[in-house]
């Protein structure tokens, strides 16, 4: 036995005698993970979170979360002798006097944008491949929770420097609080410790931003990953891949190297962005004062859709019995986002109710093979993108020489008209792709080689596709629609009534498919040829 072997054995013995971990580790170090680029999206979110923790901790060493008024006398000459909050002054100090401070601030901000983008794209991957189906509904819910908290966390984060832009964002948040019926003005006064802006808000959101929310994130991310571990990862369909197995590479050494290496790649790319791409240059905005504002006020992108909805809202307010209800704030700022996020959270349960499917699913859907779901996803995405476009209407107007009015009216109508159109187009596209798959399986691949028949006719030679490919294209199930009979054999009306009818109708829409080609059909065709 070499010295090295003895050292490893000794350490393993020491740990195992105290924890009994050897058995668990033996099993889990060789745990199999399937390989696909789209499984890296969630990883990017996880790694950005770690980057945020590291760079965020660095920033707290110098950031002073206080709205105490100070007179600036630091390195940045244009703001010399200006009255500002200690929060803003310390952010300037981080940006201009701490070596690497600006870099860390910029990495932190870029990592936040990447974190949110990765969560969204990861969510889209999970949605469009049906990875949220049984048994993974809990993880879907946790994911929606993480997305929601991420939006809040990001907003609080860019509000901390107390610059003119972020202060304006807080002013808008205060107006949303204030618009809540009955308790609104009380909530606003409690949140701000008195009238806006006061001096309580920055210290308060600082605690929420650096302690409360990151703690909740850590907890939720841990459960999220433990569930992935315990339930084993989903996999894409293919030869040898079934609902009962998982095909891939072992954690040790391949995934340790790949996933560990990928963390460094994500960190490296984020650091590069932080080095060369200026983001949130707060010194250009100046300190916050409620009487001033800069043109082109924009939230970060993950808030943009919300701002876009608020911007396009019609000017509706109700005044009755000495009270005011601001529909122009309530609907786009609270009610619509509430409906959207609740609908998203409940989608796995809604789909399973529609299809009546209670089986476990570990093989992912190709999006085209679930046309209704894919169309619904594209429809929601279209809605969000139109809202997001309106969130940048002032920037778009100046860049493309349009008027804000044109963009606003386009998005006001587009918000209602374009999503249904997107639904129909996507569904037809999915069915066409299914038809193309069917063609490919039954008639083979076009080779581009032309053959002249003895009769002088030209035909293109088709080559049969490989059995592996044929299996990949035909392995999925196409469950039939649920049927709900209006009356049973004895003429008793079905008690589920309208609900049952709606369910049957939805189920029918969901089950609309191009029949999967079978080997019998293929043989029959071949028989016809010869």
């Amino acid at each position, binding site marked *: 036995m070499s010295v090295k072997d003895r050292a490893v054995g000794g350490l393993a013995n020491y740990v195992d005698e105290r924890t009994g971990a050897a058995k668990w580790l033996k099993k889990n170090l060789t745990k199999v993970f399937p390989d696909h680029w789209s499984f890296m999206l969630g990883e990017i979110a996880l790694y950005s979170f770690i980057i945020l923790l590291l760079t965020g901790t660095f920033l707290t060493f110098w950031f002073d979360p206080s709205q105490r008024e100070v007179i600036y006398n630091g390195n940045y000459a244009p703001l010399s002798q200006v009255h500002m909050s200690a929060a803003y002054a310390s952010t300037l100090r981080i940006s201009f006097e701490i070596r690497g401070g600006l870099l860390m601030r910029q990495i932190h901000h870029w990592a936040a944008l990447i974190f949110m983008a990765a969560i969204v794209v990861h969510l889209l991957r999970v949605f469009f491949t049906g990875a949220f189906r049984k048994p993974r509904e809990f993880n879907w819910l946790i994911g929606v929770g993480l997305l929601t908290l991420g939006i809040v966390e990001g907003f609080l984060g860019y509000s901390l420097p107390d610059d003119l832009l972020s202060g304006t964002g807080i002013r808008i948040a205060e107006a949303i609080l204030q618009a809540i019926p009955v308790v609104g003005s009380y909530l606003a006064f409690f949140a701000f410790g008195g009238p806006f802006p006061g001096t309580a808000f920055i210290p308060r959101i600082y605690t929420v931003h650096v302690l409360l929310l990151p703690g909740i994130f850590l907890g939720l991310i841990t459960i999220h990953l433990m569930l992935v571990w315990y339930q084993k990862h989903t996999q894409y369909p293919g030869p040898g891949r079934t609902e009962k197995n998982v095909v*891939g590479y072992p954690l040790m050494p*391949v995934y340790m190297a790949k996933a560990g290496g990928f963390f460094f790649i994500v960190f490296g790319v984020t650091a590069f962005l932080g080095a060369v791409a200026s983001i949130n240059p707060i010194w250009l905005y100046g300190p916050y004062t409620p009487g001033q504002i800069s043109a082109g006020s924009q939230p970060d992108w993950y808030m943009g859709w919300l701002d876009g909805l608020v911007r396009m809202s019609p000017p509706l307010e109700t005044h009755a019995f000495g009270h005011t209800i601001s529909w122009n704030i309530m609907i786009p700022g609270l009610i619509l986002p509430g409906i959207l996020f609740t609908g998203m959270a409940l989608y796995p349960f809604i789909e399973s109710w529609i299809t009546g499917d209670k089986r476990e699913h570990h093989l992912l859907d190709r999006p085209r093979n679930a046309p209704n779901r894919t169309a619904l996803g594209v429809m929601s995405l279209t809605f969000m993108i139109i809202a997001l476009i309106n969130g940048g209407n002032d920037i778009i107007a100046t860049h493309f020489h349009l008027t804000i009015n044109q963009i606003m009216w386009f998005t006001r109508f587009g918000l209602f008209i374009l999503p249904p159109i997107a639904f129909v187009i996507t569904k037809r596209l999915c069915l066409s792709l299914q038809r193309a798959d069917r063609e490919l399986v039954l008639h083979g691949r076009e080779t581009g080689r032309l053959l002249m028949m003895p009769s002088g006719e030209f035909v293109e030679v088709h080559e049969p596709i490989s059995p592996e490919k044929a299996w990949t294209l035909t392995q999925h199930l196409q469950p039939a629609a649920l049927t709900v009979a209006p009356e049973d054999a004895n003429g008793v009306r079905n008690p589920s009534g309208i609900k049952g009818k709606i369910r049957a109708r939805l189920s029918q829409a969901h089950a609309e498919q191009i029949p999967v080609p079978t080997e019998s059909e293929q043989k029959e065709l071949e028989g016809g040829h010869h």
Partner: protein
Amino acid sequence: MSNEIQKFTDPGLPEHVHRRADTDPKAAKQAERQVAILFLLSALGTVLVIFSYIFMKSTTFVFLPVLGDTNAQQLALGVGLAMSLFFIGMAAVHWAKTLMPDTEVVAERHEFRSEDADRADFVATVKEQGGSAGLGRRTLIKRTMGLSLGLLGLSPLLLLRDLGPLPKKFLTTTDWKAGTRLVTDPGDRPIKPSDLEVGAVAQVLPELPAGTERTLENIGKDAVLLIRLRPEDFNLDAQRLSWTHDGIIAFSKICSHMGCAVALYEQQTKHLLCPCHQSTFDVTRAAKVIFGPAARPLPQLAIKVDDQGFLVAQQPFTEPIGPSFWERSS
């Protein structure tokens, strides 16, 4: 041929294809060298970090194409850090892809549902163990427990009460009173009508009694925008016209939608635009909303000149300024 429909069958995992480095020791050696080079590049990045942290001046700016004026030290630190991280990652991934085993492994899955016997056992255990506590039988305990736990939830809410004071009259009042002078912001100088030319805009605040400090809370509700037009441009009723002075009209600068500063004035069209949500107000028609989500005009401040010729408020605002709230009556 049988009439039964036969589906395509799963051909099973395709045969493993070996990589060049698996069979050719020369290729393996080459891959090893590539990994080593990537690690060395990372080390080089860290050297750059150390060098720039210690030896570069933090106040040197360099001009670079695309990037513009850039702090040289921050840039060097960032590029160095990016290199040292990125190439470690690339090395690890390249190592995994070329030299670590790439044979796909199959692991079995198991249904998560427990065996029926276990489930029955579980239910029985819960019933038996729960029953032994006697919660079902002892209704007095059950009810008082519910009461105490329910009430317990109230205390955190109660304890949060001191987060802030009650709004009282703060949302409905400002520091503008009859006779309050309009002063410039910044500068706090009183204003005469002759200070403003036609087409000019100025932000003003109420003059505060000597010895009072102006806070951001004051500015947040007192900020007023002063605009001078030609008197014939106005399209106002008699009362509102009497609130102006010689073509000078004053509005609250705090947007009636969500409280942003309505700061963009377009001289040609005489429109005020809020940069947050693009609510547009027509100055000639008492700041009537002509576009955007705002539901109410900006409150107008009645002004006149006092005996010394300075602009003053005739009276306080006649309605609350800023965004709507529940207690607002109109």
